[in-house]
């Protein structure tokens, strides 16, 4: 690392911390919204199911970058709100993450076989008891490993927040690049930092998969 770039190490570290924080926030919010949408996706009413499918398909097919613009400029103008880059980025990331999490939730619940529902119901359990004590404890194990994948995906998407001026890792890198005039080295450092963060998270995911994943 050249000394000109090394002088800004704390800017890059702070950027990395902000990237971790906003993607974690979006994962939690996306998980909550995704849980609701995922449950609606397998609801017994066709109209509700179709609404959930539409939500998932739309937020999975509209590029996150387009969502960032839609939230930052579109919502700001349409609702006459002065949304900060942080709010806009959180909303956009949550929208994408929730669509991914909805599918994770659906797959988790559907992994518990029908027979278990029937067996538990025939034991005199209530629907909510079956869900709480029989289905959920098994579903959450199936949901954990792919949730780590959603976190990594959200973390990578959070780099797009730099476009609307939110100073996370990518934007910090671009600022250091402008200040020092050194492109390749700074961008390479940013890439390496993303790699270290995401690779560490994926190792956690692999450990979870070994611990909780299905034994084929």
């Amino acid at each position: 690392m050249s000394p000109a770039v090394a002088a800004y190490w704390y800017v890059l570290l702070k950027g990395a911390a902000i990237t971790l924080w906003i993607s974690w926030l979006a994962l939690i919010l996306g998980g909550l919204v995704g849980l609701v949408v995922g449950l609606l996706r397998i609801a017994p009413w066709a109209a509700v199911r179709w609404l959930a499918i539409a939500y998932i398909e739309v937020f999975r097919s509209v590029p996150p970058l387009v969502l960032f613009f839609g939230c930052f400029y579109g919502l700001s103008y349409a609702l006459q709100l002065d949304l900060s880059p942080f709010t806009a980025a959180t909303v956009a990331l949550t929208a994408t993450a929730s669509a991914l999490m909805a599918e994770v939730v659906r797959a988790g619940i559907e992994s518990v076989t029908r027979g278990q529902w029937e067996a538990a119901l025939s034991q005199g359990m209530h629907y909510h008891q079956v869900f709480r004590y029989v289905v959920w404890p098994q579903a959450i194990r199936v949901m954990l490993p792919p949730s780590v994948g959603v976190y990594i995906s959200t973390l990578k998407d959070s780099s797009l927040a730099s476009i609307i001026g939110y100073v996370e890792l990518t934007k910090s890198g671009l600022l250091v690049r402008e200040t020092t005039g050194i492109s390749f080295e700074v961008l390479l450092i940013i890439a390496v930092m993303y790699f270290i963060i995401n690779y560490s998270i994926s190792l956690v995911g692999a450990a979870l998969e070994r611990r909780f994943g299905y034994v084929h």
Partner: protein
Amino acid sequence: MYAFNLAGLLPYIDPLPHAIVLTLWLSTLSILLSIAVGLAGALCRTSTSLILRLTGAAYVEVLRNIPLLVVIYLIYFGLAQVGIRVTNFNSALIALTLNAGAYMTEIFRGGLVAIPRGQYEAARSQGMTAWQLYRYVIFPQVFRIIYAPLGNLMIGIVIGSSLASVIGVEEVTTWMRRAGDETFRYMESFLAVGVVYVALAQAINIGRIVTGRWLLSRAPVGMRR
């Protein structure tokens, strides 16, 4: 109160078809190139040579863990400083292909390792040529495993192509930014472009289901779903 006015975008409708074509062109090129990269990568990852296996694994891990945006910047701005000038379209294409190629590698590898070794040996012992082995035994089964994730990845590539707008490629997202900036009709241009991307993704989805049914219905009886 905000007056929603889609008609405000009418003066900008002319360049939209061209922008859609550019998005499709960039995505299609990237899909084709990343299939080639993915096939080579999968062969490396399943090779008997340790060096090839490690190279393949390193490629996949590195590209899957770095945001596409950073890869685009590295190629467009980073390489320029080292003296290698790549046009903005080519930078986006290379970055998108490198990124998608890593996912392609994993999809093809997943398909290849799912076929038991015994099938290769059984087919060869029946006197099949290598071509016949892959054409009639391996590929029909691999296709059944990979065609769903392949469709999802193609949608992912179209979505990823939106990032080409940050280095000025005149595709759909750039159209949205320009139309929004010049009319302040940000919400309208966002919704219009949202419709375009959802339509593209659904077209790929339908195409995947149709080709899937067509190819699977031609598979031997035992392998039909």
